[in-house]
């Protein structure tokens, strides 16, 4: 009974006492969640169309951020440094296809997965060799101040006495634009249709004239774009250093939750994990467990998902013949 009071009634009572705090926490969680989702989307794009589980996605975010920050430190304005850093991701996509994927065509998925682990280390090492191993700052002038909602007409109208991080709003808006854009791309464009075909059946796609190798480049470039966008927004929140790669691995529980093949799933999975881990941290973790629960909470959340619905909330059920 005492336990129940401490671990259930206490936190819930606190939430009820201060609903504005809950709203703040949820918005903050959404902001984090969309960042996880942006990384997860990069995974999904590649996995969906080639069956390759790209372990290097986190390193790609780090690499993009490092290039961007490094070029800014050289004194380039953001409107030059940004496209150059993005261009580096496209170049990277071409190299991955040429050097890693093409020689490994027809190898097992495990082999390709191992190759992406290699790519991950290579990216981190190469990036640090160029720009040095010190933490970098990525300041491109994106808004990072806090908003006091009550200072605005809409805040007063809604009676919201809360503080919102602009970077959270930015992450949410960017994530939504990204998902919308990708949806239109996959659904309506010629390349998008070709990519869906490649995802379904390689030989058949080739037989109607879809050049497989160009498609690999396209998917890696797309996920490079997702990594670049994630890196840019992430840069407003944290320093650019290798631990970023571990943070990006948060995309894994997001994928398990949302399903490996669904872009909307990645976003919803990201939101669920972002919100729940921050609520847990704020109301249970800090007062009761000494904090830092966001490190492991997301992974804990995946255990019941794996037990009950291993393909994730939106993933395709894979039936393997025994």
């Amino acid at each position, binding site marked *: 009974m005492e336990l129940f009071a401490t671990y259930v009634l206490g936190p819930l009572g606190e939430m009820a006492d201060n609903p504005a705090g809950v709203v703040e926490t949820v918005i903050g969680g959404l902001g984090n969640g969309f960042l996880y989702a942006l990384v997860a989307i990069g995974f999904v794009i590649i996995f969906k169309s080639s069956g390759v589980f790209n372990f290097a996605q986190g390193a790609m975010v780090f690499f993009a951020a490092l290039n961007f920050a490094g070029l800014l430190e050289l004194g380039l304005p953001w409107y030059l440094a940004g496209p150059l850093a993005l261009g580096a991701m496209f170049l990277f996509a071409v190299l991955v296809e040429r050097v890693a994927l093409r020689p490994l065509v027809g190898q097992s998925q495990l082999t390709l997965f191992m190759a992406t682990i290699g790519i991950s280390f290579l990216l981190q090492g190469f990036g640090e060799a160029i720009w040095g191993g010190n933490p970098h700052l990525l300041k491109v002038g994106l808004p990072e101040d806090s908003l006091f909602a009550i200072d605005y007409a809409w805040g007063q109208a809604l009676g919201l006495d809360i503080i919102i991080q602009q970077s959270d709003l930015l992450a949410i808006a960017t994530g939504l634009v990204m998902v919308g854009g990708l949806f239109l791309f996959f659904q309506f*464009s010629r390349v998008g249709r070709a990519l869906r075909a490649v995802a379904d059946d390689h030989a058949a796609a*080739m037989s109607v004239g879809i050049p497989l190798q160009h498609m690999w480049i396209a998917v890696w470039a797309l996920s490079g774009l997702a990594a670049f966008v994630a890196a840019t927004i992430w840069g407003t929140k944290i320093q650019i250093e290798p631990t970023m790669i571990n943070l990006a691995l948060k995309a894994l529980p997001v994928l398990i939750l949302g399903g490996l093949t669904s872009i909307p799933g990645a976003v919803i999975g990201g939101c669920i994990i972002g919100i729940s881990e921050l609520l847990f941290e704020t109301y249970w973790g800090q007062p009761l467990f000494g904090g830092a629960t966001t490190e492991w909470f997301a992974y804990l959340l995946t255990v019941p998902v794996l037990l009950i619905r291993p393909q994730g909330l939106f993933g395709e059920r894979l039936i393997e013949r025994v």
Partner: protein
Amino acid sequence: MAPAEAAPLSERASRARQVGEVLLAVDNITLRFGGVAALTNISFDIRQGEIRAIIGPNGAGKSSMLNVINGFYHPQEGRITYQGKTRARMRPHEAAKRGIGRTFQNIALFKGMTTLDNIMTGRVLKMHAGFLAQVVYLGRAKQEELAHRAAVERIIDFLEIQAIRNQPVGKLPYGLQKRVELGRALATEPTLLLLDEPMAGMNLEEKEDMCRFILDANEEFGTTIALIEHDMGVVMDISDRVVVLDYGRKLADGSPDVVRGDPAVIDAYLGVSHD
């Protein structure tokens, strides 16, 4: 009504006149997988407008031959001449670009997509509008999309699959999947269509339908067809010329009547008595 049944002889005679120049010639093709020779020194040609059958017992190298023609396999020796251009190997998407379409022995459809979308992928090579124009769906992109839709609708009518146009193909019965796959290949408007066992596993009625579609495609669209088939009745009925493979070697080549009477072919199919 199946023309194949109705008047096979006059059918063949009328088509024989349309048969023209050599469209594709394979020359001394040898294909090995490690130490195993799948094809040895194969030469034959396919003429414009004809229906060319490739037959042979299991493992004779028939599918390998098609895979060489559209570039899935690269032969170690030999040359392929297509539309007057000679090369050592084809590449799949280039083959498609130059008008070689195909279907597969084990149906290879995009299972998550509908019938309509599957056939629409056959138009991918023919679409040119840029991504932004397509997304906002304006002007040229809209016209283009409509034109492609119209082409796809014609194929759907042609193959009589209106009823299943919006169904995901993964759930369709086998015979219909084969038909959708033919539709996707036809949507690329192929000059040369390679059919790998288009009638395998079908019942008599489905086979007759498929024969009719193949003959109609050949006559109405002028598509040259190379097909692999095991049903000898079908082969003899619809094809102009037959090439016979056995253990990766060419055994015979000629009109159905000639091939049917060839002792080597009979031996290959029925076995040779060694007494």
